[in-house]
């Protein structure tokens, strides 16, 4: 446990976005030679605090002390100048450049003639990497390295550019266990050198293994700070989601009883799906009249799983059967023909904002409601019916989709599959970013579809979404199914425990 004076100290930090407080009076201290773990649910305020530290958010109230002196960063440039760097979950590497060039990104050594000194660059990059115990040829192309090594190169880069405080955002989500070990080795070595690190992660086991101190955020407040050695996973999850006390009207801390599955044969069955790093040996099935929830953190492979199920990505291995018949999905069109429907997580990638509502509703069923020639009056009638059923406002099918609010757009995204219900409906983050009313509407639609015998798969990174909708829950972690909850009681605690 490092002692020493804090290099970074924040007092009473408050930050709001348009009247919503993201951080409320948060204190935070980081010592030299410390690895500081940060946990909390999505939206708890972790990222906001880190963006304040990294200079991205300059507008906040509270005191910001660096090396005992009060400071104020105006931009991330200021923060980098002061030796604070952030390594994001989405790496910012140049895959087509060499490792050495990536280490020196933007700071290539230049000789007298204004030319890049390649030899010096390669040599120094090699030295830097070796110092961290990373054995890579600096002349290799960045994109050829596995993600884990690319990440280490990026860490090397920010250290090389003079960072003494490194903020790591979800650094382990895409790594295999040996890669996580190697990363932790590097972090421990840096700790010995006296550098400080903030480690943000959903993977509480990882946090506990490498951190000295763990801070827990909930609803914009710091709710706990404790030495990693004297806490455990259960205690941290407990602090993260907070029991009782009128927190939220439905926080799903209580147990939910999952129903016993029906005896009907599954309508969709996938076996041993594998795709690169994102899916390793995933098997699952879903029955008619059932909602299967797939829960996992960002980067756990759900997104790719959904895309494989809709024929957008081709799996390297594995089998997919619809209604007992093995199918090979060559395209999204063949998935649609096989009776699979897909509502992606982003409205932009499923809707046509410049087209009227009725064209958005009819696009996926045009081949069933018209032959060569279109039948616009029929399209409008069908759209009108869906708009009424789903209570889309304003209920005018000629209106451009872009004129609708987000929640109503989302309903249009569902509406386009409902006239001729598919066998399997895949929903990615169906209620993300919605207000309570729209969430309830969508939940009701999903229950109605289930009662009509559809097999529904809901994929989400929010435990609440899965818990409120699913009859059966599968937990994905690093591309693998780690647990299936069926015919038993489950709670948010339990989900987070296994994920």
């Amino acid at each position: 446990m490092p002692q020493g004076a804090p290099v970074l100290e924040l007092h009473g930090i408050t930050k709001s976005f348009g009247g919503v407080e993201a951080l409320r009076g948060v204190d935070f201290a980081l010592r030299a030679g410390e690895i500081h773990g940060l946990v909390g649910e999505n939206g708890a305020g972790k990222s906001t605090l880190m963006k304040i530290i990294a200079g991205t958010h300059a507008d906040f109230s509270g005191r910001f002390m660096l090396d005992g002196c009060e400071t104020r960063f105006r931009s991330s440039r200021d923060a980098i100048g002061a030796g604070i760097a952030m390594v994001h979950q989405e790496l910012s590497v140049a895959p087509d450049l060499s490792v050495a060039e990536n280490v020196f990104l933007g700071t290539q050594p230049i000789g007298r003639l204004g030319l890049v000194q390649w030899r010096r660059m390669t040599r120094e990059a090699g030295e830097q990497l070796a110092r961290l115990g990373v054995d890579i040829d600096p002349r290799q192309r960045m994109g050829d390295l596995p993600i884990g090594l690319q990440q280490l190169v990026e860490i090397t880069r920010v250290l090389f550019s003079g960072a003494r405080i490194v903020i790591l955002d979800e650094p382990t989500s895409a790594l295999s266990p040996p890669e996580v070990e190697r990363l932790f080795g590097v972090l421990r070595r840096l700790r010995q050198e006296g550098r400080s690190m903030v480690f943000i992660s959903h993977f509480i086991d990882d946090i506990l293994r490498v951190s000295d101190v763990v801070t827990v955020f909930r609803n914009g407040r710091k709710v706990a700070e404790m030495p990693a050695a004297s806490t455990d996973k259960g205690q941290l999850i407990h602090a993260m989601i907070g029991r009782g006390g009128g927190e939220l009207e439905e926080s799903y801390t209580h147990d939910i009883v999952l129903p016993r599955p029906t005896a009907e044969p599954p309508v969709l069955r996938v076996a041993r799906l594998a795709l690169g790093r994102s899916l390793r040996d995933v098997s699952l099935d879903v029955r008619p009249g059932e909602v299967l929830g797939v829960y996992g953190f960002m980067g756990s492979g759900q997104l790719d799983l959904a895309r494989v199920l809709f024929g957008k990505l081709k799996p390297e291995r594995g089998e997919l059967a619809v209604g007992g018949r093995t199918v090979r999905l060559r395209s999204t069109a063949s998935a649609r023909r096989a009776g699979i429907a897909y509502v992606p997580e982003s409205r932009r990638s499923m809707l046509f904002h410049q087209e009227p509502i009725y064209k958005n509703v009819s696009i996926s069923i045009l081949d069933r409601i018209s032959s060569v020639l279109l039948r616009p009056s029929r399209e409008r009638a069908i759209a009108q019916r869906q708009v009424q059923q789903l209570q889309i406002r304003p209920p005018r099918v000629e209106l451009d989709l872009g004129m609708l609010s987000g929640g109503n757009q989302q309903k249009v995204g569902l509406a386009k599959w409902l006239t001729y219900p598919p066998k399997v409906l895949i929903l990615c983050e169906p209620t993300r970013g919605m207000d309570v009313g729209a969430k309830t509407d969508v939940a009701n639609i999903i229950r109605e579809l289930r009662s009509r015998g559809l097999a529904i798969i809901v994929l989400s990174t929010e435990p609440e979404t899965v818990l409120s909708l699913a009859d059966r829950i599968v937990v994905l972690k690093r591309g693998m199914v780690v647990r299936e909850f069926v015919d038993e009681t489950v709670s948010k605690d339990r989900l987070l425990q296994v994920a």
Partner: protein
Amino acid sequence: MKRTAADEAAADGAAADGAPTQPNWAGALLRAQMRNLAPFLTLIFLVVFFAIASPSFATFDNVGNILTQVSVTGIIAVGLTFVILCAEIDLSIASVANVTGIAVAYFTLQESYVNIANVPLPGWAAILLSLALCAFLGLVNAVGLTVIGIPSFIMTLAMMQIAAGISALLVRGQIAYKVPELVSTLGSASVAGIPWIVIVAAVMLLGGHIVLTYTRFGRYVYMVGGNREAAEYSGLNVKLILGSVMVIAAVCAGIGGMLGVAHFGSAQQNEFDTYLLDSIAAVVVGGTSLFGGRGGIGNTIVGLFVLGVLNNGLDHVDIDSFLKILIRGLILLAALIINVYAQRLRATAPE
């Protein structure tokens, strides 16, 4: 931030729950129509300008001239409209037109003084073979674009060279004159005072319009162009649609090439070079978005007349003939600026 996003959504909901307010509507309508209005106003301006500047411009005969002059471009531009609506481009259309025109002559018996080792066939066979040739070249474009994944800009650039190469091999620097009876009639004869080529162009433009507006395929073209990702997530066969428009473009170009050869009276290398720029210009000047999803044959017709009136009108006024090229370039640039500007207006429209 989860919470702020939810808040925004709630705020949006409140705003859009009632019917949208009227002024917003009018503004949005005007923005949407800007793309169609600007080319039309340009056309009217040019017509008025040349009518005043030259007494010989606004005559019945000259209207006929303009119609005939834009016909070949018009036929080629029909297919190109499909391609550009899908947010792709076809740079090989002029070369494909050229090679198809040369092919139809190659398969026709030439006069003895024409020094080409050609393969004379019956007229119908020559026409069918030539159509098959351009369709095949379009298919190669389609495969390159959709199966291999070469961007259409590069793929069709290669095809431009390939088609030019086939042309060169067929005629070997010579000139052929004879084409099948049907082709020479449609290309150079008239019926009731109206040139057949104008009728063919009108029929093809009308056909293109019907396909784009009233058929399922046409709707797919607009949807793929409007948001390719959403089209794919709606379960459309995006690759099939993109491939189809490449073939349509090549066949339209081929028909334009055959009739063009008959119209010009000869088939030779590099005969259609100016038609690439002219047809792209016609489509884009007319207001069809280079970013896909907006525009149509109506726009292409306006664009054709803007170019046709400009080319023809400049011949009627006393102007340095070398300056004409520059003026055409500037008009094209202005159209592109409007195109991008209209796109931006659309992007900033409320969503």
